[in-house]
């Protein structure tokens, strides 16, 4: 199993400061301010010391688990996983962690990449087998930005060569149309295979202050935290309100995203009832 890093106990502010939403609104990105409102207001959190995997769980590590236990993932049980086909999301029969693009695809050459097609149940089952647990949302965020706020794990200046995102491959992207054009090229060349990178590919430049790698991009990472708004009065996207009390928080964004979706305080909410996609993985935590 991969290295775990010791993260010191601390009190910190979780969430985005008001100026960050102003900044997002000024950027060349298409999403409205309300889309990001679930990151606000900042709240003080106190965490005891804990340990966190330096990198997301890899294909090789999940293979060891599956071989040792006979575990079948939710995607294997349900019979399909979500992939982005040429132009839209698709429930692809046979897509799962060992066949990430569906039948005929394998993980050959992907041993050191993050495992994908992980549902919340799959991530929780692996963590229990490994004697670990999923991190809470607060633990994840603190490990990503440290005691002081920063936009990305390495600082406040975007660097496309510090994280596995769509912008690492395509250069600056500022619209869904530009993203779709990039993905069409990728899909034509590689099919619906995840464009993950080996874990640690961007260390040390892309690491957090504590040395955690791949906290921005590569795969969305499940946390144990049930979706709640930081303040119930926050006006946010209606679909996020629907997720409150039902979904679990995911963090870090993925190889599919723009720079704005891989920020340390970005929140994404995932259906924990068995859903997974070829961009979703996890890392584990442990009490100190």
């Amino acid at each position, binding site marked *: 199993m991969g290295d775990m890093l010791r993260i010191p106990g601390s009190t910190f502010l979780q969430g985005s400061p008001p100026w960050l939403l102003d900044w997002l609104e000024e950027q060349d990105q298409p999403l409205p301010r309300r*889309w990001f409102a679930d990151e606000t207001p900042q709240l003080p959190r106190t965490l005891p010391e804990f340990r966190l995997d330096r990198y997301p769980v890899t294909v090789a590590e999940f293979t060891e688990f599956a071989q040792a236990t006979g575990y079948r993932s939710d995607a294997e049980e349900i019979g399909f996983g979500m992939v982005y086909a040429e132009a839209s999301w698709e429930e692809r029969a046979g897509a799962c962690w060992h066949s990430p693009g569906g039948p005929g695809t394998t993980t050959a050459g992907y041993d050191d990449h993050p495992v994908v097609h992980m549902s919340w149940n799959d991530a929780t089952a692996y963590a229990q087998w490994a004697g670990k647990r999923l991190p809470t949302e607060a633990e994840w965020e603190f490990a990503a930005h440290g005691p002081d706020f920063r936009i990305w794990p390495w600082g406040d200046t975007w660097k496309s060569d510090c994280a596995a995102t769509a912008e690492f491959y395509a250069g600056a992207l500022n619209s869904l149309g530009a993203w779709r054009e990039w993905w069409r090229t990728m899909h034509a060349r590689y099919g619906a295979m995840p464009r993950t990178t080996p874990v640690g590919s961007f260390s040390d430049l892309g690491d957090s202050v504590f040395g955690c790698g791949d906290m921005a991009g590569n795969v969305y990472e499940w946390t144990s935290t049930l979706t709640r708004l930081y303040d119930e009065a926050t006006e946010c*996207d209606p679909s996020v309100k629907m997720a409150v009390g039902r979904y679990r928080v995911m963090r870090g964004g993925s190889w599919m995203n723009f720079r704005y979706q891989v920020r340390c305080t970005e929140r994404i909410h995932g259906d924990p009832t068995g859903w997974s996609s070829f961009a979703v993985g996890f890392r584990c935590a442990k009490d100190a």
Partner: protein
Amino acid sequence: MVKIILPAGWTMGRTEFEGSEGLLPDVIRRFAADNPSYGPRLLGPDDQLLTYINLSIDDDLILRAERAGTEVPAGSTVVVTAPMAGG
């Protein structure tokens, strides 16, 4: 009429749309026909509701097994939530 709400991440802005009352799958099919750019996010190639989207009517989540027989009354609000919300 009914109100249909999509995630802003799908629309890049506007989230509220109008639809017509009826059985939930029919409400969504008619909406997709009127707004074809959102069709692939709601319906599979067989014109059935995608398994992984979640649908609520007036804040009540409709279980997948109950979608086919659920009536959407006039004046209600249908919220479509992707398996990943926000982001």
